[in-house]
């Protein structure tokens, strides 16, 4: 099973290691990339990659692939399940249009050359469910980010300015949920939703607590930095989906200026497209993307991801429960809601992005603007799957970023509202292939704090994608159809040194790791013991039964910091 591999004559793009389309050989042993000399005496399988592009496996740092809201989405939308992707035989049956079953998620990412995917919102009390679903996804490496921004413990410690306790609590919670980092969704707003409200600025008081969203974000960044977690705070901003919200987003981004970290950003702001609207109503709405891109470009400690909408079906599902109710009222569509204990909430609403709908077309344009105008070292390619659309359309976004000609063609198909409400038609930026590879591999790996991912240097995980594309002989501006087709299906996807897919066909069922971060050694858990015992009287489960043990996971990978 674990062949040593010799990938011969490929043309390598490896942004992290400064390799710009160079003809090179790559060697793999025991799931790692190694020097050629290490393969002496090994049974080596040779892969001929002549004139083919060789890159690290894709890393998706923000997608919703597991957990109760994903599964509620499936339950609510049987119409999503009629697309048959794989018939049961050697591999599992796999179905789904945009909302895929767990086996289908693993298979489709793999066919595309992706090897790691992070679930971006895990309700803490539901952690075991999230992990059960992650464990049902074959092929990929995975992890999950528990949600902190409305958790009563957090609100209490922030209000009381108890930084040491907040740090201890975060370390405790991440260990208990086998999580990876600190996710924040509409801080304070979801707690306000418990009484039908929301917050409308960074300085609103959270009902029942003497805190504001601003204080929550600042305290969580400080705690995350002092704990030195692999990943920074991962923020879904307040006022998502509201015209005029770009100002709140910029204000939130600027909160990072108080902090610094040599290794990575101190704040990652996610699916920014949904938080980049100017204007003051859906009639006057316009793009605020340029201002946001300027703000991010001017700072050296913030990164973002696009949250690019894809025309067609999607399902909105976020921990931002009040937004989901607004969306339900706006579209008249089905609505599921999940208030969870004293931790937060979530909502699920079906949606379809229509090119002729002015707002949808604008959303599409804003996503592209963010991708084009933000430095390639600061913006990651995502659709916020399944909120913006299917991850299977990442190649569409890649091609669009690289080709103005393609964008011009697409602009002709969408509502003319885009022409006056966004700058997309005037943008002539064309990202290079190397930049796009960075935005889908090395950059997300760096943002997550995973030194062995997203590159092909010695010692890296042997997660490799080979595409039928000669980067030395391709005109990315004009050959956009080829780019799209190429990145849809990798010639080879190699996970931990094992060939898992070839030419769009699955080769071997493989189970990746689940990363989790253990920071409990950095804190004094005794400091919060009494608070935990006191607060758990308000839980519906016993403190002793709360959380997930490592032995319950299929292939856990503990990262001790």
């Amino acid at each position, binding site marked *: 099973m674990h062949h040593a591999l010799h990938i011969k004559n490929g043309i390598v793009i490896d942004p992290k290691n400064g390799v710009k389309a160079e003809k090179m050989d790559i060697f793999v042993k025991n799931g790692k990339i190694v020097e050629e000399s290490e393969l002496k005496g090994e049974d080596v399988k040779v892969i001929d990659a002549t004139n083919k592009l060789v890159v690290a496996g894709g890393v998706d740092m923000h997608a919703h692939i*597991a957990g*109760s809201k*994903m*599964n*509620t989405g*499936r*339950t*609510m939308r*049987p119409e999503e*399940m009629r697309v*048959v992707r*794989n*018939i*049961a035989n050697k591999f*599992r*049956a*796999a*179905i*789904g249009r945009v909302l895929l*079953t*767990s*086996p289908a998620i693993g298979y489709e990412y793999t066919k595309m050359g992706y090897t790691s995917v992070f679930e971006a919102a895990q309700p803490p*009390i*539901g*952690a*075991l*469910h999230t992990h*059960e*679903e992650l464990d*049902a996804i074959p092929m990929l490496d995975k992890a999950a980010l528990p949600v902190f921004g409305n958790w*009563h413990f957090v609100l209490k410690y922030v209000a009381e300015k108890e930084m040491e306790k907040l740090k201890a609590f975060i370390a405790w919670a991440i260990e208990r949920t086998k999580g990876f980092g600190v996710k924040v969704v509409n801080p304070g707003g979801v707690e306000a*939703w*418990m*009484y*039908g409200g929301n917050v409308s600025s960074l300085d609103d008081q959270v009902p*029942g607590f003497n805190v504001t969203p601003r204080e929550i974000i600042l305290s969580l960044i400080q705690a995350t930095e002092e704990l030195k977690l692999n990943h920074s705070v991962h923020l879904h901003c307040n006022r998502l989906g509201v015209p005029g919200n770009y100002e709140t987003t910029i204000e939130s981004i600027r909160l990072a200026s108080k902090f610094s970290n040599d290794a990575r950003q101190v704040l990652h702001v996610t699916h920014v497209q949904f938080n980049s609207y100017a204007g003051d109503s859906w009639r006057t709405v316009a793009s605020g993307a340029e201002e946001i891109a300027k703000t991010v470009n001017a700072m050296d400690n913030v990164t973002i991801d696009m949250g690019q909408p894809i025309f067609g079906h999607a399902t909105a599902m976020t921990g931002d429960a009040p937004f989901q*109710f607004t969306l*339900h*009222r706006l579209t008249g569509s*089905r*609505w*599921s*809601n*999940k*208030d*969870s*204990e*004293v931790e937060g*909430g979530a909502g699920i*609403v079906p949606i379809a992005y229509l090119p002729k709908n002015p707002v949808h077309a604008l959303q599409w344009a804003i996503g592209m603007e963010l991708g084009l105008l933000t430095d390639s070292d600061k913006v990651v390619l995502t659709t916020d799957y399944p909120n913006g659309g299917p991850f299977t359309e990442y190649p569409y976004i890649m091609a669009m970023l690289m080709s103005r000609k393609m964008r011009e063609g697409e602009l002709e198909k969408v509502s003319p509202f885009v022409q006056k409400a966004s700058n997309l038609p005037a943008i002539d930026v064309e990202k290079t292939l190397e930049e796009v590879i960075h935005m889908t591999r090395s950059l997300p790996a760096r943002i997550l704090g995973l030194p062995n991912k997203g590159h092909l240097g010695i010692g890296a995980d042997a997660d490799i994608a080979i595409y039928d594309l000669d980067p030395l002989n391709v005109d990315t501006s004009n050959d956009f159809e080829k780019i799209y087709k190429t990145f849809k299906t990798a010639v080879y996807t190699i996970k931990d040194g094992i060939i898992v897919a070839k030419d769009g066909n699955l080769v071997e069922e493989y189970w990746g790791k689940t990363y989790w971060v253990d920071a409990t050694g950095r804190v004094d858990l005794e400091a919060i013991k009494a608070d935990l015992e006191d607060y758990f*009287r*308000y*839980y*519906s*489960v*016993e403190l*002793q*039964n709360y959380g997930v*043990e490592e032995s*319950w996971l299929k292939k856990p990978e503990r990262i001790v910091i």
Partner: protein
Amino acid sequence: MVENVICTFCGSVCDDGQFDIEQFKSKKLCKLGSSKFSKKERIKAPMIDGKEVSYEKAIEKAAEILVNAKKPLLYGWASTVNEAIRLGVILTEKVRGIYDQCASVCHAPGTLAVIEEGLPGGSLGAIKNRADVVIFWGANPMEAHPRHGMRYSISAKGLLIKDRKQRKVIVVDVRPTKTAKLADDFIQIKPGYDYPIISALRAIISGNADVVPDEVGGVSKEKLMELAETMKNAKYGAILYGLGVTQSRGRDRNIENAVKLIQLLNRTTRWVIWPMRGHYNVVGAGEVPAWEAGYQYAIDFSRGYPRFSPAEFSAVEVLKRKDCDAALIIASDPAAHFPKAAVKHLKDIPVIQIDPFPNMTTLLANVVIPSAVAGLEAEGTAYRMDGIPLRVKKVVDSEYWSDEQILEKLLEKVEEFKG
């Protein structure tokens, strides 16, 4: 004494039980839970046609039956753990059979309503801490989920709702139940009138009280106006509904209508709605196939990919139509609960049963495989009625194989036979 034992009887999945291993006796659990955690008559050994055999032999025979069947039905799952259910879904896929679970004869109309309108819900902890109004509709937790009221909904002490005095409890039902006796208000309705009453409430709350007649389903307009007022004035309200709503006239339409009522209420205040699920892991029996195969129940794999059609692939329909030629029944007792015509077909086809306890289905099963009791003799994951996952524990040792172990072996055998 083992602390924090997790009870595997009803959908409340109480996790604060105690178990005295020496006396083999539970503490703190309700009568229903205690009986599950006491010594009961068990299926003694694996059997083929009434003859005791080894686990290996019984499993081999079961695999043979499943592999030789054109379209086997694999039914039950509500009283076992997710690990076993997952293997069951994969097994059904392998033998191209039909997966169905107990919800198809109880709460499945609620799932159909989710498809129509969604499910604006909240966890039991959210209700415990926040709800100042709780309505039990066609549900009688005092008898079906005896500790529900104390732990989560009636007298539960919350963070923001401190005690029973701060919470208004209303029961809507066709008869005065034990729960109704504890309520601040009991609204007795005529059987089958849930739908019109919900419609009347929607009309009143949306400002159209003038269209409501003087009496709806046995309830005076005045009373309905009062109930609507209470609902509108709640800070955080919850409707918890039971089989009285899902299995009476209107079925899924009742719940769909109730969800619309909740949608309306959320325009001015906060309300959630949630089903009172029965078996301790009937939620898992729907959630696991949803992520593995896209649907919660009534799933046919005969074409090699899952298809969902409740009127076609739910167990009762399949049996009545004689559209399966073998059955594996696990963690349930269809012979005692299904209509006569469905049970008749079960008698005519080879049946495999996996269960810790003998029941009516045992009497017609050709292969009987006894299993360990999850939560007492075996561990695994279960989802409480609100979808909160809990890992049930192994408290005592047992000679019996766990469901997970049995299904793992069975799957292995099936793969071997299929080559």
